[in-house]
């Protein structure tokens, strides 16, 4: 069980004065074993925030902590923090079999073959396909492999960044069901990012709404949807 906490995180791209403030003083907590949905339009800073947590982007100020420990002090492999990316077509190395891709993230000393089989089974893929190259898989299947790879690192917190937005509707449902099922079974804490409010609503316990680099509203999912307090949230809800 782990709690992911952003405390007054800001991310600045470019020069301090002329650059672009992508994330502006964001504080957000993903409670242990819960799913926090983060909605907002493109350019609102959702993905930047996610990249900061996993160390792909450096925060200009503020801290990100996992159970009270600053993530920058933890080695990547020991962080227990994994991310699933948006584009199923670029998130797997085309030259590596899916089994190798999954095994790469495993801690040392694991029985890789057995673990790969277990994970593939977990995401409802045939373990015999471990030797297949990603080109042989459909978008939905690739996204399952990406999930399996994230789980291979035995994470306690998973960040899902627009994982269904590149998928067709008929495939999206299966991936969402899987995400929800895994989250509950493994007790993962999850930051689920999407521009689609209906999708976020379906998987999340809490919802945070981001706009222009700031979180404008955050609360229990039902409450945010039933009694939105910020104008922008209302506008989003009206669009449905």
């Amino acid at each position, binding site marked *: 069980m782990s709690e992911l906490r952003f405390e007054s995180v800001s991310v600045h791209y470019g020069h301090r004065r002329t650059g672009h403030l992508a994330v502006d003083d964001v504080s957000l907590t993903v409670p242990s074993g819960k799913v926090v949905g983060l909605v907002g339009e493109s350019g609102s800073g959702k993905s930047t925030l996610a990249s900061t947590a996993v160390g792909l982007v450096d925060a200009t100020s503020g801290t990100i902590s996992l159970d009270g420990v600053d993530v920058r002090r933890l080695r990547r492999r020991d962080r227990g923090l994994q991310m699933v990316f948006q584009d199923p077509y670029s*998130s797997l190395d085309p030259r590596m079999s899916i089994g190798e891709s999954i095994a790469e993230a495993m801690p040392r000393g694991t029985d890789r073959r057995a673990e790969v089989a277990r994970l593939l089974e977990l995401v409802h893929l045939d373990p015999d396909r471990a030797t297949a190259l990603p080109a042989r898989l459909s978008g939905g299947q690739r996204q399952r492999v990406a999930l399996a790879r994230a789980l291979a690192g035995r994470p306690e917190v998973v960040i899902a960044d627009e994982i269904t937005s590149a998928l067709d*509707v008929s495939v999206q449902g299966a991936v969402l069901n899987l995400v929800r099922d895994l989250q509950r079974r493994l007790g993962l804490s999850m930051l689920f990012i999407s521009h689609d409010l209906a999708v976020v609503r379906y998987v999340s316990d809490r919802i945070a709404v981001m706009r222009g680099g700031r979180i404008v509203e955050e609360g229990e999912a039902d409450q945010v949807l039933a009694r939105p307090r910020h104008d922008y949230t209302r506008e989003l809800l009206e669009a449905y």
Partner: protein
Amino acid sequence: MRRWLAVARTPVGAASAVLLLLLAGLALFAPLLWGEQAGAIDTDALQQGSSAAHPLGTDALGRDILHRVLVATRLTIGLALLATVVGVGTGVVLGALPAVLPRWAGRVVTAAVNIAVAFPGLLLALFFAVVFGTGTTGAVLAIAFALAPSFARLTQTLTASVSGRSYIAAARVSGVGRFRVLVRHVLPNVAEPLVINATLAAGSALTAFAGLSFLGIGVQAPSYDWGRLLGEGLNRIYVSPAPALGPAVAVVVAGLAFNLFGEAAAAVLGHRPPPVRRGRPAPAPSTVDDVADEGVLTVRNLRVSFPGPDGWVTPVRGVSFAVREAEVVGVVGESGSGKSLTALAVSRLVEHPGVVTADRLEFLGKPVEGTPDRELGTSLAMVFQDPMTSFNPTRRIGSQLAEVSEQHQGMSRKDAWQRAADRLESVRVPGQRAKQYPHEFSGGMRQRAMIAMGLMGDPRLVIADEPTTALDVTVQREVLRLLGRIRDERSTAVLLISHDISVVQRTCDRVLVMYAGRIVEELPTAELFTAARHPYTTALLAAVPTLETDRDQPLAVIPGRPPEPAEVVAGCPFAPRCPLADDRCRAEEPVLTAVEAGHRVSCWRVEEQQRSALAESAGSRGGTT
């Protein structure tokens, strides 16, 4: 490996591969076979020209030049390859270093490479030749280091493009070290272009080496390569040309072999389109029994085919529909369903080698095929998905709009500009913004400007292909409303293509649902949620999460995946995923049939139900009377 064999199957690839094999054979065996003759001194035949005994003549010591050219293959090719390997190796290491080094050190390496790239290769080679001293080692190093900078640059560029992919990010997040990421993920994915370029580089290394030897700073006596033989022969070229021409031809042929093979490999592995097959796709019988009635746009049995590796592939297979005046018709379907190709075919934008056929494809009562561009340009407007790329970034929005009227309606520049400002106003973009460039517009505003561009003429039909997909939900609404308003004010017909049922539902009067290149259902939007009959339509509707979806239940899913255009087989294409499918569905493709006025479905099971329902009602009516 199989792809490299494909290279050898192209004419140029095959010819150059044969030449390369020949050269390799010579390099291996010539010294063994003719080594003795090449070194045999014959004082009776000094400096002879071409003769039967010595086709290329003899040198100053009476040695046979033909044999010497053949034997020199090994040294020439060997040294060229050695120089290439050293050069490419150095280049790749230099190019990959910035990815592993700390940032400041990486910058230093990059800057050094950038400076080195600025010098011409041969100049660098000469410079290094002087530094390393004359002789074989010096020449190899000189040519290698002259090659290195361009390879370093190439590696850097390729590495940078691969580094942006999310599998690299995923590996880094998993805690894979920089060096391992480089070796396991980056280098394998940039290897192919590097190998191709190395083949090309081998060709130029060969000629450069010949050049250095010719100048006397390469291979030194008593060793000899083609360059030295050329140098010796050239002294008396006016007396007897053969001794110089022999090695010259060898250099040219070998250089060409390497270069052509590299070019052929680049063509095949770089996914340039394969040569188009001759002939046309087989015409298909019309599978539509009802008549799509007249309208602004009438489409009957439309098919779009592309040549594939195993014959023609037909992603749009017999689509029939009509769009009437002042009507908004939506086309929904998943990726690969053929919806966008249908739109492109209607507006005559399917590019070669695609082939469009139709029993009828008529716009305003005239075949689209024969309509002049000018007429189509003003009466049919097209709005594309990506507002970022549909405007030219270097020209003002206003002048891009005005161009339409200048070109198609022969307006003066001033009038056209006036009209552009007016049309922008009509899509709620302030007229003075016509002076601005596309990057000064937001995404939604750009999409509205795109629609304004369509309104420059007096369009009877607007085809919008995923016009809101790249936009945020809050902006989506205004674009959709705008399309609705245009219809209301100008009675323009709209064909709206989208993967998003909710977009179509909000905007359209009628919906066409496409699956695997076919229309599977056509119905009024108002009935979409109440009376949809096709199993695919109902499954699709159920699969979309809404704000009312029960969060305690799993989402409805459609098992399996849609067939690729090349995989379409007999029977209903949805049958493998359909819970209702029976033997007939798997054997025979259903036909789009009217079940009610304005409602057509292509499904055997629906047809059966319909028939039994009719029989029942007829029966019950019969019972009461």
